[in-house]
Structures are given as structure tokens and as C-alpha cells.
């Protein structure tokens, strides 16, 4: 059982690092796009406020939740391998 615990802990730590990295990157991409949108299309009101609002919307979006696939896909892959190697 210790082997399983070790596997889960190391896996969780690595995936959390990837999740954090992808989250920060995705947010920065979103921010750059919002700035560009304001400069090229909106051009009225406060730019900072526009970007803030856009990021707030993004925080609750489905697109952001898709980053959780970073955890889900490897977990499913491990289950698939266990099934194929041991049961099938």
C-alpha cells in the first residue's frame, strides 16, 4: 500500500505543478487577448476595468475548468493501462 501512496503523492505533486503552470499561462493569454480587443475594437471606457471584467468572466468560465483535464486525463490513462494489462 505504501507503493500506491507514494505513486499517488508524487503524481499529484507533478500534476499540480503542471496545473498551476497551465493556469497562469492561460490567464496571461486571456489578458493579452482582452487588451488587444480593447485597443482594436472597444476603445471606450476604462481599459483596466474592461480587462478586469473579462478576467472575472474567465474565472467562472467552462474553458477554465477544462484545465482540470490535467488531472483527469492521466488518471484515466492509468486506469486504462491497469485494465489492459491485468484484466483484458
Amino acid at each position, binding site marked *: 500500500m505504501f*507503493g500506491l501512496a507514494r505513486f499517488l503523492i508524487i503524481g499529484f505533486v507533478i500534476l499540480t505543478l503542471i496545473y498551476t503552470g497551465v493556469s497562469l499561462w492561460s490567464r496571461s493569454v486571456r489578458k493579452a487577448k482582452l487588451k488587444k480587443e480593447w485597443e482594436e475594437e472597444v476603445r471606450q471606457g476604462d481599459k483596466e476595468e474592461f480587462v478586469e471584467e473579462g478576467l472575472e468572466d474567465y474565472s467562472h468560465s467552462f474553458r477554465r475548468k477544462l484545465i482540470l483535464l490535467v488531472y483527469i486525463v492521466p488518471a484515466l490513462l492509468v486506469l486504462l*493501462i491497469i485494465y489492459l494489462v491485468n484484466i483484458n
Partner: protein
Amino acid sequence: MVYFKWAFWGTIWLIVAAFFHYTLPQHDIVRIVNTYEERQDLSDWTRRFWSTPDDQSQTLENRDVQFIQAVTPEGKARVYRNEDTGWHWPPYFKFDTANLYTEANDAKSTKAQPEWYSITHYGWRNEYLSIFPNAVALKPVAGPDATIIPWLNIIILTLFFALIWAIWVRWRRFRRNRIDPMLEELEDSYDAASDAVADRRGRIGRWLGSWRSKK
């Protein structure tokens, strides 16, 4: 410098190739002839070529290991160990060692009436180090020259090289946009600084010259 660079990258790629060759599954078409179990000493550096099937085995200095003996269609001997990989590297998550042992025993056939099996395994056989590839799965095939397309290896290696390519392209772009201009700037400012020094020396020289007696 060029030789050093080639040697460096050559070594890196050799290690990568060896890593994949050891870890990725391979298929052998064989006839199973026998199975046996033998106590193995596991206290020297070749320990890394054996598995860690459970928690106790991390500290054991020797234990029994199952083996599967087989013969290729060309008549060459193949010996596989049969061990759980458990939750350890490589990630095969093999727990059904006892079942595979049973299947292997059931699959035995004679030279006169051969039955051919595809045995999936990873690892290396080395007679001098006494290391064996680990058998992962066994399945019957039509004949000794059945072809097996290694889809999994194709997918994994394609993804790996795509990743390397993506990193390489980004690195090139980063170097072109950020590092090269910085080096150029450094060069320019160095040139400017040495020009300024030369200029100043000229002025001091002129000033010193003004003290000399004019002829």
C-alpha cells in the same frame, strides 16, 4: 568546440534512445517451452534491472523470481522474467504475475507441434549481467511470421518528438527575439565604450602635449 557540441548532443540522444528501448513494450513471436522459479540475489547495482513488486521487496537482498523460457522461430533462446511492476517505474501497472505464469504454463508446446505466441515485454537481456526482460502479456498468434504493428510505440514516440520539436521551435524564437538583440546591444555598447576610452586618451594626450616644448 564543434566536436564537443556533437559529442554532447550525441550522448544525450543515445541516452534518450536507450531509455525508450528499455522502457517501451516490444513483441516477440515465440514458442513457450518451460517456466521456472529461481532465487535471485539482488544486492548489487544490477538491482535496478529487477522490479519492486511490493513494499517488502525494496529491502530484500534476495527473493524468488519467476521465469518464462521460450524459443523463437529461428531457434534462438529467449528467457523472460515474470515480475509485478506494481506502482513503480516503468508504468505498466502489472499486478497479474501469477496469472501470466499460469497462462505461460498453459501455452507450452513442443517442437513437433508448435503453438506460436506473441509475448509483450520490456527491458533488456544481458547474459553477462544476468538481466532479463520482463514479460507483460501473452497472446496466441496465427503463425511464426505474424506481423504486429507497435501502435503504442508509434503514438508515444510521435508525441515525444512533437513535444521536442515544439520546445525547439520556441527556444529558437526566444533566442532570435531576446538573446541575440541583447548580445548585439552588448557588443555595440562595448564598441562605444572603447571608442570613448580612445577618445579620452586622445584628449589627455593632447593636454600632455600642450606642456611639451614646441619645436
